[in-house]
């Protein structure tokens, strides 16, 4: 256990993260839609990767750990794909209206 990992330079990574944060705050200010998407999501992905690789030490793990991570992300994708249409695309305020407006509750009973 004692043969220590080669340490990444945590401070350097942290500074990179800060720079990216600044970029992702600045990007949307230009108000170009495509650029906003790239800065918001693109940078988020890069940042997540940096954190996972360095702070979570995935950089030094065996391939199988990456494989497991990828599988989990796939599962998350599958789950999201199945659930999103129900949870996000219902005109869901119907329910709340229902509570406020007693008549439709009665009608359903």
């Amino acid at each position, binding site marked *: 256990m004692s043969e220590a990992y080669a340490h990444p330079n945590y401070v350097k990574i942290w500074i990179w993260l800060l720079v990216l944060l600044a970029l992702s705050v600045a990007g949307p200010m230009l108000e170009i839609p495509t650029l906003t998407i790239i800065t918001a999501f693109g940078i988020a992905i890069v940042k997540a990767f940096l954190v996972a690789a360095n702070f979570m030490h995935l950089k030094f793990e065996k391939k199988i750990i990456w494989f497991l991570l990828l599988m989990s992300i796939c599962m998350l994708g599958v789950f999201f794909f199945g*659930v999103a*249409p*129900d949870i996000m695309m219902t005109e869901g305020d119907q*329910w709340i209206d*229902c509570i406020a407006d007693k008549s439709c509750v009665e009608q359903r009973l």
Partner: protein
Amino acid sequence: MSQAATAVQTDTNAEHHEELSFLYKYILPTDHKIIAMQYIFTGMIMAVIGGYFAYAFRMQLAFPGELVPLYGLVGPGEYNMLVTNHGTIMIFWVAMPVLIAGFGNYIIPLMIGCDDMVFPRLNRLSYQIFLASTLVLILSFFVKGGGFGGAWTAYPPLSSVAEYSLTDWGASLWVLAVALEFVSFLLGGINFVTTTMNARAPGMKMMDIPIAVWFIVLAVILFMASVGPLIAGAVMLFMDQRIGTSFFLPSGGGDPLLWQHLFWFFGHPEVYVVLLPTLGIVADIITVFSRKKLFGYKTVLYTAFATGGLSFVVWAHHQFIAGIDPRMANVFVVTTVLISIPLAEMMFSYIATLYGGSIELKTPMLWALSFIAAFLIGGVTGIYLGASALDVYFHDSYFVLAHFHYTFFPITIIGMFAAITFWFPKMFGRMMNDTLGKIHFWGTFIPFNCIFLPLFFLGLAGQHRRIYNYNHFPDLATQELQNIRIFATVSLIVMLCFQLVFIYNFFVSMFKGKKAPDNPWNANTLEWSTPSPPPHGNFKTLPTVYRGAYEYSVPGREMDYWPQNEPPEES
């Protein structure tokens, strides 16, 4: 014990293990065989409770409103509690502990040829957490308001609001018990996978592993990959119940459908989690008793991979009419129909294994064959249900109920009896009585069909599940339908009575049965090369494996079996 570490690699001598006190041998064991027995016995006791519940509510359905002998009056709330906990117990406290944790623990180290699980103390901890979860569940029957009555699927808002379910603490303890149980099986699962991947006897390649072990490992991998969302869901449900959040409550902006997704994302893989161990056990039994090589070992294995993968993308077939997006329903119809292909292929492989074999109808073989027959009915009716148009009519009817009992009963009960009758000689060093075994078999299998076949017709007649007294529904209160209900209930009572034969056979054989030889069935796998019962540490000398697990009736050999650890003849 300083050589203990090297002993693992060279020879696991039984002598290296000193005699343990009663406390450490039976109450706090680290020996996988004793832990397995703990799981199996706990599971069997829970099966008795689950069976008792079924008896009580079936009596209410057949003779509504009358006093049930040995139980009392079944009121509506109590009916809900009985059905809910019957389902919960049979799936989570019988199928999982007996087949996966129990037999998994027993056979994995023996079949892959090592002295114990790689993490014996973790193994013990996993049983202890399981025991705690069992106690919490039993406690929940006795709190104010009684046990939880919101069905084993626990759909909110019914399950999350005490005013609806009328079981304030019963519901919360139920969630807690289930969550604890999952923690226990996660720990157990880690152990199973690590042991199988790392501790196999020298010479045992991946493709030499017996199917029973493969399938248990696949099952726990499926379990580990699917249980996360449900544990998250359980925490959210618990918070909805106890601290007033509203993850699943429309009144607070939550979404009850989200729970259904979280539940079934776990729930459907879960049915394959319990299915796979039984399929594996059956594969091993039919090869032994038809003296033939398993037809298409790799095919069987790959179909299991395919089933496992697909099982993650079919969950919404339980929600076709729950208000999900209809476009999604189409996707899930396709995946549901797809999943029957690998399963059917596997069944054909099993049948092809039997073809031309010299079949010996011993009790374990009868159980294995009846599994295939009964499970086919269950699987085929699943395809009907998977067509969303048909499911509009079938959903939540007795057709669904009959479908899943034709899958779960073979898996849990038939699978359990198959495994027990097959490995009993190894576990207790004595043979079970074959005649009593056959009486018990027919006394279980015939009534089983009498209970559940009629329920398909009740479902087609429009009988909805979860109704405690059909007299309140004129369409369903006709005498013909009532007669079918009475027939099913009487069959259930007959079946329960025949279990006494098993209990008698089990305990008498355990102490008085004929002494079992090491390899009573002339089987190939490694567990049969140990003494019956195997000592602490299992093997005198660590076996070396020379071939696959299914070399039966090999041409040119005198004996019709060829144990995995028998060195090839010099030539």
